[in-house]
């Protein structure tokens, strides 16, 4: 299998730096699960830590706070990719440590 790191970087660059409806700062905050105000912060934290607990009300409250559906779409995508990336990097570092490449 080709190393996916290049394709991961392309995805990350697209969602964080490319054209979007949410600001780049907001997308980056969602990716990092840091620095967002409520109720968006609560939604992003749920997506990162236990997405199966997200409810209709969580999405509705973010929409009601003034974000468009496209902005919610982007924020949720960034939150999911951010958490997956952190887990991937943590595990890769553990693999490096296990085989002596720290």
């Amino acid at each position: 299998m080709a190393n996916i790191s290049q394709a991961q970087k392309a995805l990350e660059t697209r969602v964080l730096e490319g054209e979007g409806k949410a600001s780049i700062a907001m997308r980056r905050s969602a990716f990092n699960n840091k620095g967002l105000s409520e109720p968006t912060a609560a939604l992003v934290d749920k997506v990162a830590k236990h997405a199966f607990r997200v409810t209709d009300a969580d999405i509705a409250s973010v929409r009601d706070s003034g974000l468009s559906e496209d902005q919610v779409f982007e924020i949720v995508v960034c939150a999911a990719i951010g958490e997956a990336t952190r887990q991937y990097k943590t595990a890769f570092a553990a693999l490096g440590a296990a085989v002596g490449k720290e």
Partner: protein
Amino acid sequence: MRLRILDRGHGFATKVLFALIRAVSRQPVLDVIKLVKYRADFYGGPMGAITQDAMRGPSTWSIGDREMMAAFVAKSNHSDFCTKAHSAVATAAYRNGEKVSAVLSDPDTASIAEPLRATLLMLGKLTREHAVDADDVRAVLAAGASHKQIEDALAVCYSFNVIGRLADAFGFFVPGPKAFEDGAKYLLTRGYR
């Protein structure tokens, strides 16, 4: 689906494609397809390239093993849609539904090779606890998985850590078994692009 744009916000050509899928398959269009086709340049396109590589690129893990990992990661994330979807693909790839059920019920006792068992257990811990350490990885290496196989498994885990979260956050409709069986046939013949 919790966002109307993901249900109805697609362009004309995509809506025609969905009508064709409904007519040919006699099944509703799966929400995962609606997601990847919505503003595909933002998410569906670049994510599809990663998932295709992770799930269908060259690897010493079989396609069945990788689909099994996807289903197991999904189950660890409590993602009902992805667990059912990728259990169906793993079942079709292995031609053995009992094996898939046994792994999802208890990977410690399922009748599978030790490298796959150890890899699944590590992926389960990573998904549940959001971290693993060098000792966790050493256990997988000791069970006989290679460095490259662990890299490949982490690529599968990455993909399904993204997709499962989106399935649950956007509230994907979970259809009956027939829709997942049809989806499995498609994913085995056409892949993820």
